[in-house]
């Protein structure tokens, strides 16, 4: 009998459910007076470095209806391409930019919205620069395990063409599902959970 590796199993995921807002954005669903403000609603202040941008979008189901109960979180580098994280070993990120945001879908339109900055480039493990991108994580009723995807920018065609992650998408017509539309400073990133326009989701 060999030794036991002794690893634990990851706690299994469950759906966030329709009332996810109670826990993640209580003020948004009228539970006021518990937290001063909802976390992740303000990414930038006047001292944050970088180009101000706005990202909006909607999450659509397989019948083409927007989800009105989704919550989207974003994680991104600062304007210099550094992450505000203890695991960032290349330098210190902008202290006025946490890099993380949380956006509930509007209860009527389904639109989520982030006011942030355009991220700088971050190296792939082999040292090649990845194109500027924002990581997104989507949870909602009906989604059993949070979905990871990436937003790339439509005005970075050259960088996108050389991006090592986009290069791994075998069916090239799917690359466009990760590239936002719109023009600076307002980019639109719609997410399709299922169907002919299905967004590329990652196992990372």
């Amino acid at each position, binding site marked *: 009998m060999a030794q036991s590796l002794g690893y634990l199993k990851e*706690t299994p*995921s469950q759906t966030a459910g329709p009332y996810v807002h109670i826990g993640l954005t*209580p003020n948004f669903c009228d539970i006021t007076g*518990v937290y001063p403000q909802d976390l992740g609603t303000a990414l930038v202040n006047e001292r944050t470095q970088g180009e101000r941008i706005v990202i909006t979008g909607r999450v659509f189901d397989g019948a083409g209806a927007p989800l009105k109960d989704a919550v989207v979180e974003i994680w991104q580098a600062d304007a210099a391409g550094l992450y505000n994280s203890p695991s960032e070993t290349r330098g210190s990120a902008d202290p006025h930019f946490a890099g993380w945001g949380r956006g509930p879908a509007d209860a009527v339109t389904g639109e989520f919205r982030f006011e942030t900055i355009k991220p700088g480039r971050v190296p792939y493990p082999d040292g090649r620069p990845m194109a500027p991108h924002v990581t997104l994580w989507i949870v909602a009723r009906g989604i059993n395990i949070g979905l990871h995807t990436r937003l790339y920018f439509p005005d970075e065609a050259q960088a996108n063409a050389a991006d090592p992650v986009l290069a791994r998408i075998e069916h090239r017509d799917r690359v466009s599902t990760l590239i936002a539309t719109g023009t600076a400073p307002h980019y639109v990133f719609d997410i399709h959970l299922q169907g002919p326009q299905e967004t590329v989701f990652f196992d990372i």
Partner: protein
Amino acid sequence: MFDKSNSQPETGPFFARDRSWHPPAYTPGYKTSVLRSPQRALLSLGSTLSEITGPVFGHAMIGELDNDLIHNFARPGESAIGERIIVHGRVLDERGRAVPNVLVEFWQANAGGRYRHKKETYLAAIDPNFGGCGRTITDADGAYAFRTIRPGAYPWPNGVNDWRPAHIHFSIFGHGFVQRLITQMYFEGDPMIWKCPIVNAIPDRSAIEQLIAPMDWGNTVPMDSRAYKFDIVLRGRRSTLFENRREGN
């Protein structure tokens, strides 16, 4: 005791997620998943810096009553109605190491199974002294605790007569964004657990058992609150034994 002050921050890639342990996206017994599940395969991606990093939250953001759901929405001098319980445990990674200083958020229905949410229409009454949200940050040992009332079961429009078992929703951050996890805690001995299509989206019975918190007599406070213990395991990080990688990551 392991000397934490002598340890470097971990920067290694994360263990791959065992997706046969988690619920798959498409679980038709849970009807909403039918139109909200991707049909194409996920694109496997080795960890880049964008995945192995993640946000940190300071203890300073936590208010005094944030982990006390009995009082954090109650009028002065009043408290929520229901069975008073303490829920506590540790956040660990798959290597069994504590995950300190991470944000844990939780939300739940009141003792009658009613959520304080405008889209909720269940006829059980709102408790004027119960909001249903809480949060805390794990300590140096990865431990967390909060005080609440035991939530009630509630009916939901899935099958004709489906009821959710009593549960508390948890949202956990780790140190990398790919450790991000939302799950639900259930209570030991609840016969409704095994009837629930959301629970049964998880294919493996022992994975379901990982979501069931045992009653913890040892930590029960006499004449005050019973306790339940719920440990949470996040993805582990590879030891950086021999990494053949270039400068920059």
